[in-house]
């Protein structure tokens, strides 16, 4: 993964690009952008059930099918009349997360010993995605996305003041 800061910034920019004005809608997109990384709860369980077992057990949370199901579960904790809209927004955020992760070297799995990527489509298809575009520990995505978000916020504020 790039760090969650980058994921949040990108989700915020996506919400602006989609012209989403309401803060609660924007919030759901941002929630979606960090959603797949809930699989890291394996770190809590690995001392008890073993490193590889914990990792494999929670791995579906970082895959398309797992995200679709766990996202539906999360959205069920909102008002029923908004489920469809919120689910779409959550999936936009989660999709941006998986897409960004696909540009990294395979760090998403941490101890993923070898291979070329994440099996996003497991168990439907055993295809590895990831392109080795940037190392995950790089600060560059966080710095660039942070600067863009700050600039956009300032610009919007300036335009609003001068309107």
């Amino acid at each position, binding site marked *: *993964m*790039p*760090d*969650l*800061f*980058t*994921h*949040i910034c990108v989700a915020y920019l996506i919400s602006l690009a989609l012209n989403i004005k309401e*803060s*609660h809608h924007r*919030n759901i997109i*941002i*929630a979606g952008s*960090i959603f797949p*990384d809930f699989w890291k709860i394996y770190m809590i369980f690995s001392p008890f059930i073993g*490193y*590889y*077992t914990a*990792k*494999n*057990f*929670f*791995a*579906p949370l970082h895959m398309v*099918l*797992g995200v679709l*199901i*766990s996202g*539906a*579960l999360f959205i*069920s*904790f*909102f*008002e*029923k009349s908004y489920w469809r809209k919120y689910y779409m927004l959550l999936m936009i955020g989660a999709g941006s997360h998986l897409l960004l992760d696909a540009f990294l*070297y*395979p*760090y998403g*799995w*941490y*101890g*993923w*010993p*070898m*291979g*070329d990527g994440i*099996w996003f489509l*497991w*168990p439907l298809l*055993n295809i590895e995605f990831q392109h080795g575009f940037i*190392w*995950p*520990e*790089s*600060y560059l995505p*966080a710095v660039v996305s942070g600067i863009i978000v700050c600039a956009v916020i300032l610009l919007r504020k300036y335009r609003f003041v001068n309107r």
Partner: protein
Amino acid sequence: MRKNIWLFRFCLAFVLLLLFLQCARNPIITEMDLGEHSGEKIALYFAEVYEKEDMSTYIVKVGESKVKVVCNDNFEEGDVVSFNGIVHNNTLISEKHHIHRHPDSAFYLSIPAVFLFLIVFFRVWEFDLKNGIFLRRDKK
């Protein structure tokens, strides 16, 4: 109505649990066995240098597996390195490598981001314990 919602949640949680169990029973993240890849070109990501055997031979740790790597560069114990090379006699002969100076930086950058998210999220939403749903604060 509320019963239906809880039933829906239970069904989703059950399906998710089945997916977890399926992945745990058919692991995709496994212990490394270099022997299976003899003669192949493979990449080894985020390996921690565990022991230095001689000038160019290292024992590295990936997950819970230990692997022998031959590389001409000089590493210290505890360094985190990614290698790309060919497996020969249960040893990875490194052709390319990358030293990770700050391997945990993504993790440390993520911690404040989580707090930032929680602050922003709960400024807009609050959890209604009675009904078990998130409600918008501005709608109250």
